[in-house]
């Protein structure tokens, strides 16, 4: 073989090479390993109904993680998402069941409140230049307090329009929740936006280097405001899913959702230093968390230990990311 030929062969991307270069390789392998492990340990794990359950369990955190991914790609972080979701959920439930508002109008109000808080986060980050960590820590507390001020009791008797997304339909004998489909559609839209639109490119550019992005002609403030506002919208949608799944408006909801969503994003290979990340990875990350929670439950592991293992998982994922991307 001539050297030219071998050079040409070297350039041909082998399947192994493509996989190695792919940012979602790690999450895919981790998810497969977790599934194999739990399938061996528990005969109940590998079944249609169980997978359906996992998908229903991850849909709330999965949707929260979409907004979180966008924020983290821009080098930010959003600690407020679980509380924003709780506030939005309580408002929707209360307006629709106690105040007798049209449920769709109630949902619209809930989404607007969530977007408003997102816009507030974005405004403080871009306008005053505060670190996202501090800003969202503040809005976390504000949203938490507002929720408790509004109500401390669980709101029941939700109209059927609010529980529709929790209903299931049968696909090949397996029950699939409507909300799971909504979550997958949202992931699809976000994936498309990041890959195929100038706005998506801007998100990565701002995350890589905000000053270089500005000098390349990107309106960096608008990008950041947009990202935080859209993130707020996903938290509002997560609130609707939360209502549908539990059937009640719970002021206690979402207490650990911020960390769960960050875990999903990080497990999915998105860099906490910004500019690099994949929404498909986040979906896989959310599934990894779901599989672990579910598998450990099947094995009869106490919930406190589940939290312990999730904590170890996050630190392991970030360490692997750091070690593989060190220069």
């Amino acid at each position: 073989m001539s050297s030219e030929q071998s050079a040409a062969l070297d350039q041909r991307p082998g399947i192994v090479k493509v996989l190695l270069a792919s940012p979602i390789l790690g999450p895919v392998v981790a998810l497969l390993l977790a599934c194999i492990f739990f399938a061996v340990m528990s005969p109940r794990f590998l079944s249609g109904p169980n997978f359906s359950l996992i998908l229903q369990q991850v849909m709330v955190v999965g949707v929260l993680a979409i907004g979180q991914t966008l924020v983290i790609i821009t080098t930010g972080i959003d600690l407020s998402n679980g509380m924003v979701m709780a506030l939005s959920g309580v408002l929707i439930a209360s307006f629709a069941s106690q105040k007798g508002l049209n449920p769709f109008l109630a949902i619209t109000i809930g989404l607007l409140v969530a977007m408003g808080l997102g816009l507030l986060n974005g405004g403080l980050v871009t306008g005053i230049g505060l670190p996202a960590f501090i800003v969202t820590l503040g809005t976390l507390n504000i949203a938490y307090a507002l929720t408790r001020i509004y109500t401390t009791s669980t709101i029941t008797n939700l109209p059927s329009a609010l529980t529709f997304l929790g209903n299931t339909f049968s696909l090949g004998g397996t029950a699939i929740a409507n909300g799971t489909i909504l979550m997958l559609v949202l992931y699809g839209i976000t994936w498309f936006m990041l890959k195929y639109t100038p706005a998506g490119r801007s998100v990565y550019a701002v995350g890589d280097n905000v000053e270089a992005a500005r000098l390349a002609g990107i309106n960096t403030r608008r990008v950041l405001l947009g990202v935080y506002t859209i993130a707020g919208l996903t938290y509002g949608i997560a609130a609707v899913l939360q209502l549908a799944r539990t059937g009640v408006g719970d002021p206690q909801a979402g207490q650990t959702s911020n960390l769960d969503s960050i875990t999903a994003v990080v497990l999915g290979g998105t860099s906490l230093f910004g500019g690099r990340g994949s929404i498909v990875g986040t979906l896989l990350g959310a599934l990894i968390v779901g599989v672990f929670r579910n598998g450990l439950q099947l094995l009869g592991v106490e919930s406190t230990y589940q939290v312990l293992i999730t904590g170890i998982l996050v630190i392991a994922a970030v360490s692997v990311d750091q070690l593989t991307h060190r220069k």
Partner: protein
Amino acid sequence: MTDEPQGRVLLEMKGIGKTFPGVKALQGVNLAVREGQVHALLGENGAGKSTLIKILSGAYTRDEGEILFDGATADIKTPADAENLGISTIYQEFNLTHNMTIAENIFLGHLPTKAGRVDWVTVKRRSRELLDSLDVRLPVDTLTGGLSVAQQQMVEIAKALNRNTRILVMDEPSAVLGEKDIDNLFAVVRRLQATGIGIIYISHRLKEIFQLADEVTVLKDGRYIDTRQVADVTMDDLVRLMIGRDLEDVYPRRKAEPGEVVLEVSHLAQAHLAKDVSFQLHAGEIIGFAGITGSGRTEAARVIFGADRATSGEMTLHGKPYRPRSPRDAINHGIALVTEDRKRQGLLLKLQVYFNTTVSGLDRLTSFGVLRLKDEMTLVRKWIKDLRIKTPSPEFMVVNMSGGNQQKVVLARWLSLGIKVFILDEPTRGIDVGSKAEIYRIMTDLANEGAAIIMISSELPEVLGMSDRVMVMRDGRIVKELARADASEEVVMQYAVGHEEAAS
């Protein structure tokens, strides 16, 4: 200077080899440095200079070869090994902690103690002595964060001296300095040399090697080419050794037929350094902006590009009033800025070649809100080919490219938009000779096609070689306009530093 090298050989690196996955970075490289000698290490980007000094400083470990220090075998495996031998390296990016004082930085990691507590009296006295020996008049308790680049460099040197350095490696120390600070740096280097320290001096600037070095070792493509006495070689010899061919004419000839006025700037001022800048730029013209660092050239450029606001003054573009509100606004008006700091301001380093190339012109590649990725790739491949950008693929991350290729990616970004007014701030800083020539050719082609170019540069040969007219700035003002024929390095420098200073 005599033909025989002076001084005892202090450091000898023999047959050094280093392989990275897929790349033979170094092969059979030799380097011998004598006491009290300035030894220049020369080579294009990617020639292996950085790898060699990283092996010497313990940042990398060698795969082959041996290192002798003071005649004894030295097995350098960690930065601590190098430090114990008395080898210090000053990298281009300084290693200072900005919210600490000069004295604290000098003693960082080596604080002397007395009865279990830090002996601040000794720290301050010794720091004062070190700064005095370098002619630095700053108080030792100044925070390093507020220092100029030149002052920070002096603190780095003081830090090295405090560790009983016997070999000092300086990685392109002049690249970050203006002409005046460079003179000061040279004086310091000569003083260190007189104390018997061996200095390894890395620079792209051939002129400096003749001013400063005793011996020069040339590397090319990771291999050792030759070591010569500087007194015995000419600049042409070095260029030939370095790039393996003659560099016929670095600055391409060009028909200078300036067209109509494209950009007119009058009495432009900005909050910081630019105070009163007025000039006219014609189509097909290259204006060189000379001056020392801090003379306001970059600041004026940023205002023209809409990156900063003007505090007063007027601009017209093609005869119409022009007042850019943002870089995007300037780009839409057909003005582009190639920034001085390529890595922090010019490029999205961790993103790909294609991303960086099209990031400013995505609207042209969008139909109904959706990017035409195939068209984008076609466009990017065309520019990779046209500008001869060396990259394995359009998906390659720009952080892994050489300086010259990175700069070509920046240029491709603006060329693909059909920009007509270019502001190039230090366009060839940190770029090897081969790529420099290519960038000059691109500039020449652009001007010939009617583009108007402002080139800010601290390298006088480049200013004189490329410009139709030279504007000399000092203290935020254009103090002199010179036609190409009237400009010489001496005249430009005189105006740049001010007659008063030049006379004293």
